């Protein structure tokens, strides 16, 4: 089933253990690092990354090649590389699956990315729920160091690079890079609007490159196989590479699947996940975690890549596909998501801090039979205003509410007119 798709990141995935260092090396691991340190030029790594059109896999989809090259050549030292393993987006668990499968691929990816910007300190910022992954990483980092793959004079070169694992105290906002940098410095993890950019003045005022686990894990393969190879992995011409999709909800086989970008949503659900659970009908899905909008049955055959979803006025996000069936109340689902955003708002800016509890209150009233028709324009205006909050948290948070009103206004009206949730009757 999944074998029909090219596997890159999860190629050597074992059912219940990680790929050991020797297994990883046998499969060609650390080859890219060796080649870069001995044969290739630092600039070449950057060029390949840029040519490969690798887009950040953490949710924002920012081109990784551009990010790397924003670290100025003459920027001060030491420089930092931060690996964002703080996968807090609801519905997303790809990094967990990956870290429990291929820790060395991440270590190699980090070493390559760090080398390209001459960073000497690598930090893996990991959420507390993934304590087992943190332990694995610490152990494998030690092993890699013992093999000369990390630490001083890596593989006999003059390049030094250390990785430490930093455990978070656990908050969604820590996934936002500027908030994460604050957290790493023992400050309150409020986001910080640039300028200065992290690549200019990040950790302790020094250049810092921050990337998602999956993004970094792609780097060894791009370096090794070239940009064109990576681009060819995707099914649509604009996209490049494979993507770890986490499918959950009302499907028969929820899980994390490595699939080429551009694969159709219907194919993911039907081929990979064995179709809808209990023969239910597909009603909608969130294509990329809690901060994306609903995709309805109209988009059942949409090509899952960054551009196609952008055209559908949605986002690929983290690639966490959460599937709803026709028994699911979309108002209640949105209320659940809004509750999440109300709870996780960091409290820095007004619209987000006060807006989500307000929206939650209105949605709760609609769901529980106290709704009024006047709420709908209120919610719409409020969502529009939440776009003007400080960071990307609130725009992500209102995505589900906005798409609820756009795609399921009938269902909302049914709640209001019927004074209660039609699904509970």
């Amino acid at each position, binding site marked *: 089933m999944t074998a029909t798709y090219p596997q890159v990141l999860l190629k050597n995935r074992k059912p219940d253990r990680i790929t050991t260092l020797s297994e990883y090396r046998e499969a060609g691991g650390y080859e890219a690092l060796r080649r870069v340190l001995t044969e290739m030029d630092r600039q070449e790594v950057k060029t390949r990354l840029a040519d490969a059109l690798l887009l950040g896999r953490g949710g924002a989809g920012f081109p990784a090649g551009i990010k790397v090259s924003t670290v100025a050549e003459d920027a001060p030292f030491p420089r930092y590389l931060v690996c964002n393993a703080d996968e807090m987006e609801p519905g997303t668990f790809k990094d967990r699956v990956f870290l429990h499968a291929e820790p060395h691929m991440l270590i190699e990816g980090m070493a390559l990315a760090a080398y390209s910007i001459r960073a000497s300190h690598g930090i893996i910022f990991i959420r507390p729920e993934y304590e087992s992954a943190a332990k694995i990483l610490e152990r494998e980092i030690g092993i890699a160091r013992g093999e000369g793959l990390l630490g001083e004079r890596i593989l006999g070169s003059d390049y030094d690079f250390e990785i430490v694992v930093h455990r978070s105290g656990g*908050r969604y906002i820590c996934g936002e890079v500027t908030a994460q940098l604050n957290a790493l410095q023992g400050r*309150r993890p409020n986001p910080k*609007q640039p300028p200065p950019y992290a690549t200019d003045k990040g950790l302790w005022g020094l250049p810092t490159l921050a990337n998602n686990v999956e993004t970094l894990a792609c780097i060894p393969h791009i370096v090794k196989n070239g940009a064109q190879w990576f681009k060819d992995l995707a099914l649509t011409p604009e996209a490049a590479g494979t993507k770890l999709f986490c499918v959950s909800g009302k499907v028969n086989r929820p899980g994390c699947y490595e699939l080429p970008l551009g694969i159709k949503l219907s194919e993911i659900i039907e081929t990979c996940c064995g179709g809808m659970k209990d023969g239910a009908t597909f009603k909608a899905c969130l294509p990329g975690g809690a901060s994306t909008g609903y995709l309805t049955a109209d988009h059942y055959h949409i090509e899952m890549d960054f551009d196609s979803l952008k055209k559908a006025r949605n986002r690929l996000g983290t690639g966490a596909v959460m599937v709803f069936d026709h028994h699911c109340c979309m108002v209640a689902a949105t209320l659940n998501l809004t509750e999440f955003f*109300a*709870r*996780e*708002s*960091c*409290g*820095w*800016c*007004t*619209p987000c*801090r*006060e*807006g*989500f*509890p*307000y929206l939650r*209150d209105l949605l709760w*009233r609609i769901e529980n039979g106290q709704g009024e028709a006047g709420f709908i324009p*209120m919610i719409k*205006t*409020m969502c529009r*205003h939440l776009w*003007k*909050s*400080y960071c990307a948290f609130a725009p992500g948070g209102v995505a589900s509410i906005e798409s609820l009103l756009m795609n399921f206004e009938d269902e909302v009206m049914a709640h209001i007119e019927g004074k209660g949730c039609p699904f509970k009757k």
Partner: protein
Amino acid sequence: MPTLKIDNREINVPAGTKVIEAAERLGIMIPRFCFHPALGSVGACRVCAVAFTEGPVKGIQMSCMIDAQDGMVVSTTDAEAVDFRRHVIEFLMLNHPHDCPVCDEGGHCLLQDLTVAGGHGLRRYRGLKRTHINQDLGPLVQHEMNRCIQCYRCSRYYQEFTGYRDLGVMGIGSRVYFGRSAPGMLESPFAGNLIDICPTGVYTDKPSRYIGRRWDYQRQPSLCIHCSLGCNLTASARYRQVVRHEARPNLEVNGHFICDRGRYGYAYASIADRPRQAMAAGTPGPIVDILAGAREAIQQTVEKHGPGSVAVVVSPRSSLETLAVVKEACGQHGWTGPAAAHTNRQALNRNTAVSCLRPELAVSLAADTEAHDVLVIGADPLNEAPMLALSLRQVQRRGGHVIVIDPRGVQLPFDFDHWAVHPSAMGAILQALIQEIGGHRATAPDTPATFDITKLARRLNASPRPVVVCGTDILTPHEIALAGDLARALRRTHKVAGLFYTLAGANAFAAALLHDQPVSTEAVLDRIEDGGVRLLVAVEQDLWREFPDRKRLQAALKRLDHLVVLDYVDSPLNREAGHFIPTQPLYESGGHWINQEGRLQAASPVMAGGEPIEITGGSDHPPRVFDRRIPGDEPLAAWRAVAALAGEDEADPAPQLKTALADFHPAVNLSTPEATGQRIDLEAIAHDLVESGPAPEPAEDDAPADAVVLLLVDWTFGTEPLSAMAPALTRMEAAPVARLHPDEIARLGLAEGRPVTVSLNGNRLTVPVQADPRMAAGVMAVPRHHLLEWQVFGETRVIVKRSQLKAESE
């Protein structure tokens, strides 16, 4: 210099100006909560949203976060922006309590203003209101967390601006809480500014809690006279009582803030035991008669013993008007004085500082913050002139460096280098430093290796903008002059190098201009003791509290034929005096003061005076019948009283004042209104005083090896006599202790926590010992605390032999 268009009006602003500030220059007040000129922009509250219609930035953006750029077209009245701002206000009001009627911020509340202005009038939110438990933050600041709109101004001010770390923000999301980890007294002596910067009523003024509304207050620009910095403030009075001080922004002096000593020190003007009645030998009488009596006593003394037998002492806290009239009177009549310092050393210290302060060297408190490296010599900013510490904090925040050379355990709310140097070594270090700065290799004085003079000199030489800050309390005139030389030496190697002295007394600078040769109370007492002076006029100078040898003072006063006291504070001398004339504090008289950098500033009278209604009404309703006169309105401006004592009978003193001010000193020109707020003409001050002045005090080198230098020093709270009368501040005071280095305590056979008695010249002072590892060896610092009878040694810097110290068992 970008040019942009805001609401169809073009404006040109310096690069780096935020759009919100650019609009302000046009008189367009964009709403704001989190933005504050002293704290900068953080974009948290989102209420300053405006529409950018054309140019490099487009759409609805926060005007505090965007730098003004060429070609920008901004609309503050754009429908979407207005609607968004109204929504932000609605968001902020969701949980705001319904307590404006009982909120002290009501009437000058930014949230109230913007809610009304934004048009949000009806509550739509049906959820419950969030509530919070308040914290007791000490006697100065009242906490009401329910009112918070989470603008983060308080935590940013408290932690980033002042450098204190006990108030901040806890929690997450809509439950964020601004306060301390546990309830308790705020540690920062600048905490009162929270009241000013909070845009609503979370932090309100506790001492003036529930006293009234701002619209009912008489409010006037005034000055702080609790140290020499001359911070600007707005004084409020109501029902003949000063009720509140607020910081008055002056970007050249105190910026936007004041310290808590200045904010709460006003109570002396309205307390119940303020003397308001003229007295003859303790018996109240009409002020006209008492004035006449005093005049007659002066005339008789002059007739009997000559004009020199009348001496005047005046206070460095008195207004320029008072100093001028006193100077004129002494000059005209040949009276002795006026003395405006206690001891010869203090007088000489002050005058040395003033004469060293050349116009090209003088920097203001605000300019201090722009320094790159600050060398603080013999000054304890937080205790002597608190706002200086806040100024130095900004130096450190901007990446600058502060080095303090002082024997005391100086503490500042930021990282700095402290050289705890014995007082006797200060001069040598300064001399060596001057030599090194001049490029000469200096012979290192006998100091610990950590005090690397060469390195310091190199650092100062490399600094693009070094400033020398020098105190005048514990040093000798010689060292004060050396600080000036140091600044001059730096000046030679730099384009900009500054010199900043702190002085003793709000108007000490003007007091220094009274004479070419300083006169001290000490010298006047000498003349009393030898019979030369038979009548003493003490003008707003509470000798009882402030002269450092009470026994000698009392003996000298006994020798006098007559004592005339003019003052607004209660003192035993008032009743002992042959004639006592009550005077007005600055809230009633107004006046001019010259701060330590030579800036001439004015305070307006805030109220007419008279006994507060609180007192006349006995805390109940005021009398139902009007009197012809306001009760307790006898006090006169001190200059009027002096003019009445010295001038012609029944004469209008106004012309006398005018002449006195004109003749006061060529450096001080009050003839144009523009002169106020500016620095006086420092060029016109004689700069040769240092060389021609009396020789420095005998060196302490010949002191026995086992001696300690006892310094009587200032503390932030409890030592400044006027503010020490404020009930709110007495709770802020620490109990007086003698601070010594722990090794010194052991060496002297003392015990931490136990009292020590110092006996000197038959005088004794007993005070508990406290260890302070930051103190220099061989030094003991005791505060001039109002709870301590410290007025025993005749000087505030004395050498005490080991045999003169006795550890008390209890």
